[in-house]
């Protein structure tokens, strides 16, 4: 039982650190609140949806930006989508980079866009790792028979 409590504590600490470091914001909490018996894996589902969507968008973005003539409208639309989905799950660092990205887009600054793309990719992978780690922890907690503490 102690192990479960330890795990739970670890999970809480970990998620708190995520909030503190700014990877996540309140929106994620809202997501967690939406999860209940009828949708037991709602958060995971949504987050994985986010992963899929983001990866698709990032691929599209790198493709579009590596073209000879960059279609900034397209880039802007992609970034907008990424911004929307990242803000929906509360991945605010990704969202913030998206805002900067869009500014470069408006300026039609290819170099800035490419830099932002790298940044977005970086942030995305970071948040992905963090979230996956958190889900792993949650799984462990559940496997150990404990409940996931709400924050």
């Amino acid at each position, binding site marked *: 039982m102690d192990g479960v409590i330890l795990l739970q504590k670890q999970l809480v600490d970990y998620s708190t650190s995520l909030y503190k470091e700014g990877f996540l914001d*309140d*929106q994620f909490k*809202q*997501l967690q609140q*939406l999860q*209940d018996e009828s*949708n037991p894996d*709602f958060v995971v*589902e*949504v987050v994985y*949806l*986010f992963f*899929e*969507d983001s990866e698709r968008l990032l691929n599209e973005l790198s493709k579009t930006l590596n073209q000879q003539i960059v279609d900034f409208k397209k880039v802007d*639309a992609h970034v*907008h*989508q990424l*911004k*929307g*989905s990242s*803000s*929906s*799950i*509360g991945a605010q660092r990704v969202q913030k980079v998206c805002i900067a990205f869009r500014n470069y887009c408006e300026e039609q600054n290819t170099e800035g866009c490419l830099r932002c793309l790298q940044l977005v990719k970086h942030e995305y992978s970071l948040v992905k790792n963090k979230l996956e780690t958190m889900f792993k922890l949650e799984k462990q907690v559940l496997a150990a028979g404990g409940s996931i503490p709400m924050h």
Partner: protein
Amino acid sequence: MAHAASNSPSVTFESPPSSFRAMGLWLRSYVNRILASANSCRRNRSRCCKRTFNRDVEAEELQDTSTVCLSSYYSVFMVRLAIMVMLAILIGMLTLLTWHFTKVYTQRSLDTLAYGLRFELLQRPMLRMWNIINSTVEITTAQVKLSEYVIRRYSKPVNQAQQVELYEVMRDVTWALFASQRALSSITINYRNGFVQAFHRDHRSNKTSYIYSDLVNYSINGYDADTRSSHQGWNDQSIHGNMSAIWYRQPLDPVTGEKIGKSSPIPPDELINIAGISQIPDGAASWHVAVSKYTDSPLLSAALPVWDSSKESIVAVVGVTTALYSVGQLMKELVGFHSGHIYLTSQEGWLLATSSNTPLLMNSTTGPKLMMAVDSEDRVIRSGAEWLQRVYGDKFPLNDEVHIEHARLGHQLYYIDSFFLNLKRLPMVGVIIIPRKYIMGRVDERAFKTLVVLISASVCILVVGCVCIFVLTNGVSKEMKLRAELISHLDARRKAEASSNYKSQFLANMSHELRTPMAAVIGLLDILVCDDCLTNEQYANVTQIRKCSTALLRLLNNILDLSKVESGKLVLEETEFDLGRELEGLVDMFSVQCINHNVEIILDLSDDMPKLVQGDSARVVQIFANLISNSIKFTTSGHVILRGWSENPNSVLSSGKCSISQKDSWPGQKMKLKLHGSHGKRSLKKENKMVLWFEVDDTGCGIDPSKWESVFESFEQADPSTTRLHGGTGLGLCIVRTLVNKMGGEIKVEKKNGPGALMRLYLILSTPADLNGAGKHCQFKFKEHKLTMVLALNGRMGRSTMAQWLQKNLVHTYEASEWNELTQTLQEHFKASYMHIPPGEFSESDQMHTQGISISVVVIVIVIGLLELSTDIWKEQLAYLDKYSSIAKFAWILNHDTPNAIKAELRWRGHLLMVSRPLYKAKIVQILEAVIKDQQMELQKYVTATIEGNLNECHEIDAIHSWTPSSDDSDKSERDDLRLASPFYRTPNASPSLNRTPNGHHAEFAHVRYEENACNKKSPGQTRQEEQQSPITCLKERDTVRISTSMDEQSSLKGLRILLAEDTPVLQRVATIMLEKLGAKVVAVGDGLQAVEALKFLLHSSELRKESPVEDDNSEIITANGLSLLPYDLILMDCQMPKMDGYEATKAIRKSELGSGSHIPIVALTAHAMSCDEAKCLEVGMDAYLSKPIDRKLMVSTILSLTKRTA
């Protein structure tokens, strides 16, 4: 040019600095100017220095401007100078060219003329010379021919007599010739034998003489002896050496040739030169110029031999001499007329003739000799000859003419021309010297004069031009300076405006962005407040935080409103709304606030106010909310009255004030009306515009008259200390004024008797055309029912206002302000009957007669506060009142905090009419209606509990704030404020939709309550309230079922079908779950096109739906209500989507709806957070606007407000 300029005394410093004097002047004035400007600069600086102590910046600016002025002055000066120099150059060139051309052309033509003249002048003496020579030759030839003829006749003279005869004949012939040619000086015939015959004419003495030699000395045979060697026999020696020969001179009559005197012997060659054989060495004619002792002019002599008949020997020599005197004479004449000098020389330079009187011959030891031209005594001729010799030397250009135009002889210029006359043996050169002055003198003079005139004229022009330039540039530079200043001012102003624009833009954006977190903070605080486990202290703190946050949010809203108005983005709606009801709601709300302040809030609307008006209800309410809250803020005790009347001369407020008398103080309004003129008034009528007047009257601290205008400025408060005392930002009144102005009205602070402030405003609102007649309150017919009222209210102002109004409507009114007064009134007028008739059993008519007053219904309105609630006395008081229950109906005005125990007690005692404070006309009307209805029912002996209950609950619902007895009052009022300015409330069409139902405000309050419920779900009082409320709402048929269902937060959207158009899968999922959790059915589509199609499909299938009832309960309710046949109650539309974005999709949907008349609410979901996006959303036909990430509460309230309208 420059010289001329320098000579002109009028030239000042402006003149080109090319001349020294001008330069000097110029420099001096330049230096003066610099000194002057430096002085002024210094003065400026010193002036600045004086101010430096407190105005450093200004001083610097001044300094700057002075230096700028100086530099600009220099530049202007330089430009001016440059223009002047250019002008000078231009004028100078013009002058020079003019002068040059005039001069050159005259000179050239004159030169041509002069050349002709000179040529002519010289030609004439030459011609004369030629004539002379010619005639001489002719005479000589004639003489020779004659002599030959005569001598042939007398050839071979045999004797002396024949010889003499020959000579005689010769003499006659010769005379004839001599006499015919008067110009001849002499003719000589020198015979072979030495005999000489000669005629000589002295022109000066006009004597003619015949000279002959002595005949005896010559032999007749002389001829023969010399026939062979003719030449030998001829020599001059034979004559000259023969000194022994005697010549005789015989004077002759010059005309007839008669001998007039005795002949006298003269030595040979004494008088004349006899041409001898020596002069014709080759037997041909010869020429030479000779001189004689007796004439002072050179002589031209020609000699020809006379040959004998066989042409073998010369028998005689004929010589003819002509004086050149006449040539000189001619020259003199010519020169005398034309001035100048002419002379002729031989080729060698011997002077032959001159035009002067100087001698031509030189006396030397050997007799007179010809002189050279260079030796002439005439100065001019000599110097001319010398000049020629100097220039041409010996190589005088033969056969050529020389023309020299500028020969300086002595001090004068001369023209010198020479012609060469090439005669055989006697080539001659003629020279004419004419002083230049004679020909060109006048021309030169004129040229000089012209030049002077031109120069002086140009100098004048230059001076005038320079002055003009100076004057003009002066003006221009001044203007330029002014213009530069103006431009800089404009620039500064534009900058200032831009910065102020940025400021408001920034404020708007900021407040917009800040509102969201603020809403979150407030929501979280609400949750916290509802938490049970808070200690009292914590609870107090949290409540405090809640208040502060609300205040902050209100401030933000104010700023947003203000900037919205300022940027002109505020667009007023034009929807119909019930003005009276809105204001009543407002007063209801504020009365709660007033309870603590001991301030009475009274609504006094005149009866002629239109019931329904067109306009922006939210903004109208905002105006009054701001004004009333402002009044309440400054009023610690007394009352706040909101009066309203429409502009109508007959409109008299119930308080007795005549509105028209105060209109004089409204120049603006009057002016506006005047501006409209008569037709303006008509147009007001035609458009159903109405001028509605309002005043907010309070008994607070009042406003200083000097601040009456400025209180309406932004961030302006009448007293700086108010911020400390009352808080606030000073934006409220500013917003009010901008809104009022926007509605075509005006607001002013009015003078007031007594303490407090009086704000008066008017609004121009249009009334619905068809409702014009029915616009008035559907007045209850009080008269018919013969009502009597006892007003037992503790607020004096409210009571008297109400009483006046009632009396005006012919209702008997008694007033009482406290318990004792009430009992007294009751005793006096109603003679409390002690017979306790149970309700419903007493006979009303009996009662009426016993009282002696013609009353049918007595209504006693009592404020709960009149009872002694602190102790248990109130129960006794109620018992006392029961005595009158038989004759009167009681209506209780409850406070918000009236304990339920009292309400229960009242209900138990049968006092079923209960309304909450404050009392206003609508409530009175309600009470009276209920009473009358009740009465009628009683009369019919039919009383149903249901209706009682209904009435009871109906009025209970009115008491909006009775639902949470435990909660803090001020807190609630804050919430009401929040409600007023909350984003939900700003959602367009939200409030008008509520007004459409007659019972609208009930629903509204219920809804508000619901909203509060949403955050207070755990409140224990809440659940009770819900229990209490649900049966009521169920009973009410008109209330929507949805409200009852929405009681439960978990399923507040239950029964709603929502179409979600969102392309981001994450968001789609999140939103779906969120909505589903709230009980809504969600259909999600990926883009706008799908959304449109889904809607279209279902639109078509809706026909089917109508026919076959769906088993779904929710939809059944919807269809049962018969209000919506649409499959979806609402669409949540993302704005940016692939294929078709939200805007396009909305447009398409709205287009497809055009025919059907249905309107499906569309809520925009967007990640853009700017207000312009909101505008864009609304423009394409969306109904509301939610920003991502989705805030659940906001979404719920938005969705509810939109779906309820369709319900």
